[in-house]
């Protein structure tokens, strides 16, 4: 009988082997690409590689089911992710070697947007009044719920919507 090797559960050794393969990212070939020659110019691409992984496993022992546990009532699992970004290109031209950095505008924009968002949130947080100093709302939560249920803010000539209702509910001092 041919052993069914494709459907057998992954063992800890399999996952460790997979991790060892992932460890190949630590080799220099993972970061520096193959040189590309075009006429008198040779270009070597350089990129940054980062990867992370984790694995776990366990066994479940049911009371009075020792035999079942021996049959393989256990599981292992793992996961990981990797990313690579181009950083620079080494250019060899006319006996001159130069390093040309690569600016990733998308990543810069992402960073700017994230930082700006956090900064705006922080500024808004600074302007929020303390809970004890916060003015009492005009409508009680019960009243608001009844108004929304009846659809009053969304009907007629004086419809205000959710935002209008929220703003109207702020009593000025």
């Amino acid at each position, binding site marked *: 009988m041919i052993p069914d090797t494709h459907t057998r559960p992954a063992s800890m050794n399999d996952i*460790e082997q997979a991790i060892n393969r992932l460890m190949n990212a630590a080799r220099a070939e993972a*970061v520096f690409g193959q040189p590309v020659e075009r006429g008198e110019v040779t270009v070597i691409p350089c990129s940054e*590689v980062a990867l992370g992984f984790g694995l776990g496993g366990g066994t479940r022992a049911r009371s009075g089911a020792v035999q079942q546990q021996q049959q393989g009532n256990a599981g292992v699992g793992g996961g990981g992710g990797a990313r690579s970004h181009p950083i*620079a290109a080494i250019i*060899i031209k006319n006996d001159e070697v130069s*390093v040309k950095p690569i600016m990733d505008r998308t990543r810069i924009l992402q960073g700017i947007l994230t930082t700006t968002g956090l900064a705006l949130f922080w500024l808004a947080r600074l302007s929020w009044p303390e809970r004890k100093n916060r003015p009492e709302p005009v409508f009680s939560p019960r009243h608001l719920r009844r108004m929304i249920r009846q659809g009053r803010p969304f009907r007629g000539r004086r419809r205000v919507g959710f935002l209008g209702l929220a703003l109207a509910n702020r009593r000025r001092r």
Partner: protein
Amino acid sequence: MPHFQHRIRWRSYETRGQPIHAQGQDITPIGRVMQIGWPRVGLIWHRPVAVEVRRNDGVKRLPIRNRTRRAIVFFSVGLSASILALPLLMQQRNLRERIRSR
């Protein structure tokens, strides 16, 4: 597996690629690896740091800089510093106003 004992282990080392012979010079790419090993968790960060050019007249090392990261860090640190400084400035202004009103 030797990497994953029951404690955090980290190591950093330099990697050297195969020297490339092009146009009468040997070019060796150099990278730096940082490995962090936890029990059953691992992180690897590998980045290029320099390129070594070996000619008849000597060895030259050209650094490889990550301009993208530099731009992001510069902007983030600048904005964060200015945002953090804002409450201090406001506090000082309030203090001055209080002193004036006395």
